[in-house]
């Protein structure tokens, strides 16, 4: 993420021409609702844990038609349910609950990536692209009956920035999208740090229904951030974790028992770690949701999820990886954003179910610490593997082999351009392994049968490490034949992160779900800068300079204009190629989300990983 480019707030010539929501002249818009793919979403967090696990474990949701409780009860299985506070980093299950209970200023429409108004009637942007003025809808109430006002946003975003409970503050304080604010110097552990100065956020309630936000610098994808889950409003003063508020309830109660938001559902009951029941809000301001009640059971066991589906007490479900048979899929329709719809069957119970798959907008990769693993080894490993094997063996062919950091949906020019560029330019063998080349590179660097290199590959310590174990095993076997002793090590997730930050790991799994549909969200990591986990700065080269320069170009072209976009796109490709040249990553794959359902229900097609994982559109036949 970039350092703040400037602190000045000059040139605020304000224009209040109201434009209809979504009609603003921005390009390549897409949503960033902290979608299910990066459950523990947050500024560039790798939801490796989230998404990969999700798909591996047979996914975060199956759902079931609760026939016993009357008609419109949908029941889902979620992998966990812990903390639903919008400002917390959440797991997949908590994210689904949160998505139903909270809503944001903007949202992504079914089938598209252009943000549309959700809690606003109108908004305007100042000429300099810095100041956004929102006119709020006047018919929106919180689950507790309070009317939504601009002051609620001031409170909610101050919480996001200043609360001790907040883990997502960087979404508005750091990176390309920044709300103007001041910082103060604080000494932490003997070091001086710039931290947010409480109360300095440039968010203002002009009146009850008008909200004004000033950005640090213009940003082309700002509307996506206003649709991002962490920026959901909560009633002013609901918890007392920032200055000036005592809190109406305990933090623990708000975050885990009784979150209050403006979404289509409200919490009915929570049994920690077991079950969350939400029910449709009476007189919801938007379109009335399909299911009257959604009951979410915490289930982790893949076999259980599958069994429920096969017994047909489930209508919407996921087939765990271990049961997935690619030969049973037939795709009838492919939509604009590469959503695919078709059928899957026959299942074990002789039924044929509907099937859909969508792009998760996620890139999984193995990251090298360049200060510990030298370039020939990184390149040789890149030569030696074939990404197709990863997808085939780890995920039974569901997903795309990854070559770029930017997933196909957001790659400049889309999937076709992605494939073409990779095929023509990927230096380490597109859809093939080049073991001979790998050996040559290693031999030139002075390695051989009697002077082998040795590195450690660290994996998260999942309970069911199926897919990643297999992929790691593929890499290890390949490494063995190119003079690299690759040791596979498993450790709890937090240990890996801790060790990675401290610079004690050679190579480890990571992945990033995008929050807004721009390669920038991935490529912000792919350049030499202080604190980068790749530690590219410590192994400088022409390529690292190229990446740094290209990033500079991106930073200088953040305006919402076509020319700026063109400049950015070119810079992105330069960065991708610089990353290839120095082989700072070993790319893995781009996962795809999947969902199955029987004919009894009608399930809207999930558009992309950027979209909320909402089940309010499910209708019963």
């Amino acid at each position, binding site marked *: 993420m970039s350092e703040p480019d400037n602190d000045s707030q000059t040139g605020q010539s304000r224009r209040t021409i109201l434009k209809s929501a979504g009609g603003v002249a921005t390009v390549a818009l897409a949503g960033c609702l902290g979608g299910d793919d990066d459950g523990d979403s947050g500024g560039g967090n790798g939801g490796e844990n989230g998404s990969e696990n999700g798909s591996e474990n047979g996914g975060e949701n199956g759902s079931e038609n609760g026939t016993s409780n009357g008609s419109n009860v949908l029941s889902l299985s979620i992998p966990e349910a812990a903390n639903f506070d919008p400002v917390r980093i959440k797991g997949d299950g908590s994210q689904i609950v949160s998505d139903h209970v909270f809503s944001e200023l903007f949202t992504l429409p079914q089938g598209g990536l252009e943000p549309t108004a959700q809690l606003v009637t109108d908004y305007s942007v100042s000429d300099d692209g810095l100041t956004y003025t929102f006119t709020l809808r006047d018919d929106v109430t919180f689950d507790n009956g309070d009317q939504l006002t601009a002051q609620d946003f001031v409170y909610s975003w101050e919480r996001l920035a200043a609360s001790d409970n907040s883990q997502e503050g960087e979404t508005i304080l750091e990176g390309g999208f920044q709300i103007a604010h001041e910082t103060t110097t604080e000494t932490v552990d003997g070091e001086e740090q710039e931290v947010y100065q409480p109360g300095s956020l440039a968010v203002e309630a002009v009146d009850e229904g008008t909200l004004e936000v000033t950005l640090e610098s213009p940003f082309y994808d700002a509307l996506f951030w206003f649709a991002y889950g962490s920026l959901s409003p909560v009633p002013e003063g609901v918890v007392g974790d920032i200055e000036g508020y005592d809190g109406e309830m305990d933090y623990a109660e708000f975050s885990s028992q009784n979150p209050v938001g403006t979404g289509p559902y409200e919490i009915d009951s929570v049994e920690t770690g077991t079950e969350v029941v939400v029910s449709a809000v009476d007189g919801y301001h938007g379109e009335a949701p399909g299911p009257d009640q959604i009951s979410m059971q915490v289930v982790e*066991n893949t076999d259980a999820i599958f069994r429920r589906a096969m017994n047909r007490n489930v209508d919407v479900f996921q087939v765990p990886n271990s049961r997935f048979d690619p030969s049973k899929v037939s795709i009838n329709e492919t939509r604009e954003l590469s959503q695919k719809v078709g059928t899957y069957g026959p299942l074990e119970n002789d039924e044929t179910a509907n099937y859909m798959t969508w792009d998760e907008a996620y890139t999984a990769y193995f990251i090298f610490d360049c200060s510990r693993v030298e370039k020939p080894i990184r390149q040789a490993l890149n030569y030696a593997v074939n990404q197709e094997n990863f997808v085939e063996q780890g995920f039974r062919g569901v997903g795309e082999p990854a070559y770029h950091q930017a997933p196909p949906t957001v790659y400049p020019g889309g999937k076709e351009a992605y494939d073409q560029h990779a095929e023509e330019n990927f230096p380490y063998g597109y859809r093939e392994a080049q073991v001979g080349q790998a050996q040559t590179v290693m031999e030139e660097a002075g390695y051989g049968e009697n002077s082998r290199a040795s590195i450690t590959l660290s994996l998260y310590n999942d309970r069911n490490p199926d897919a990643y174990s297999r992929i790691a095993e593929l890499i290890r076997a390949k490494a063995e034949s190119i003079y690299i002793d690759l040791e596979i090590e498993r450790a709890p997730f937090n240990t890996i992160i801790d060790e990675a930050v401290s610079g004690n790991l050679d190579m480890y799994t990571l992945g990033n779900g995008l929050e807004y549909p721009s390669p920038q969200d991935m490529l912000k990591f792919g350049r030499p800068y202080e604190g980068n986990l790749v530690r590219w700065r410590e192994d400088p080269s022409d390529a690292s300079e190229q990446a740094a320069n290209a990033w500079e170009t991106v930073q200088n072209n953040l305006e919402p204009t076509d020319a700026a976009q063109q400049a950015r796109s070119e810079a992105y490709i330069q960065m991708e190629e610089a990353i290839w040249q120095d082989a700072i990553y070993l790319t893995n794959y781009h996962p795809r989300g999947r969902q199955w359902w029987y004919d009894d229900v009608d399930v809207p097609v999930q558009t992309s990983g950027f979209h909320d994982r909402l089940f309010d559109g499910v209708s019963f036949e």
Partner: protein
Amino acid sequence: MNRLLYLLKRILLAIPVLLLGTTATFAIIRLGPLNPAAAIVGPVNSAQAQERLERIEEQLGLNDPIHVQYAEYITDLFTFDLGQSWVVYPGQDTVSLLAQFGPRTIWLGLWAVLIPVFIGIPLGIYAGLNVNTNRDYAASITGIVWRAMPNFWLAVILLALLSRSDTLFLGSGWESFIIETEIVGAPDLSSLGTPEGFVTATKQILPAAFVLGSASMGNELRLSRTAVLEIINEDFIDTAQAVGVSRRRLIGKHVLRNAMIPLIPVITSEAYILVGGSVLVEVVFGINGIGTLFFDAMTAGDLPLAGSLMFVFILLTVCINIMQDILYTLIDPRIGYEER
């Protein structure tokens, strides 16, 4: 030494045990590579990750000198201030988490003790009364194999069998046998009072309890068989038989009662093994109990949660130990206070 004094001594001795145990827990978590702050920060590949890590460490007090942290931890525990979870259920009180997760594990443990008692002991007595017959061998070998089965494997196999049990259980399959339940998942304990709620919750827990109790079942089978054999060979049985006490009465009154005596402490000590053993079974059967909670807390480095759970475990096992000793002395006064 009279009983009261003995009890007092046991309780006094329990204190250093508790101290040692909790200290070990602290050392294991805090001196190892686990970092709760990193778990909270998440996999952030950004420049600010390190700064945030430091801020959270500061917030959690992880930068204080280790002895200060230790003193705080121990004082909190021994004043029963169990604190709040950091990572797994952030912001929630450990006590309330215990209250929410505990009952499920207790329910599981209860049945895991009851099933072996009601299956293992009768089978053992049956085997003992028919010693060296094929029936005896069949029962004994079953017991031994039960004991040798790893819980996690038995759980996995049982799960697979139950989910394929369409033709068993009166042709209905396990799921719809007697009452509709799912094979995997936590039992609903909210309506234990009603007959239906009780049956549902019991049926839901039975497979898991069966697995968890499998080793105990084997143990109890063996022990009750031996106990019956020993007592049958005692003189007073011969005498009783000589004076014409009927066989049924003999078995019912003398053999069973006397055979039970050495079994009671075995059962209590098994209750104590179950406390720690439930994690594997909970993982497989999807019961969100204390075992799963502990496992998650442990791997995430959630010190307050893991430490408090450990504290409660130790407290529980120490209590069971004391209870067992007391029971022992009550039932069988021949056993000296010093011996055990």
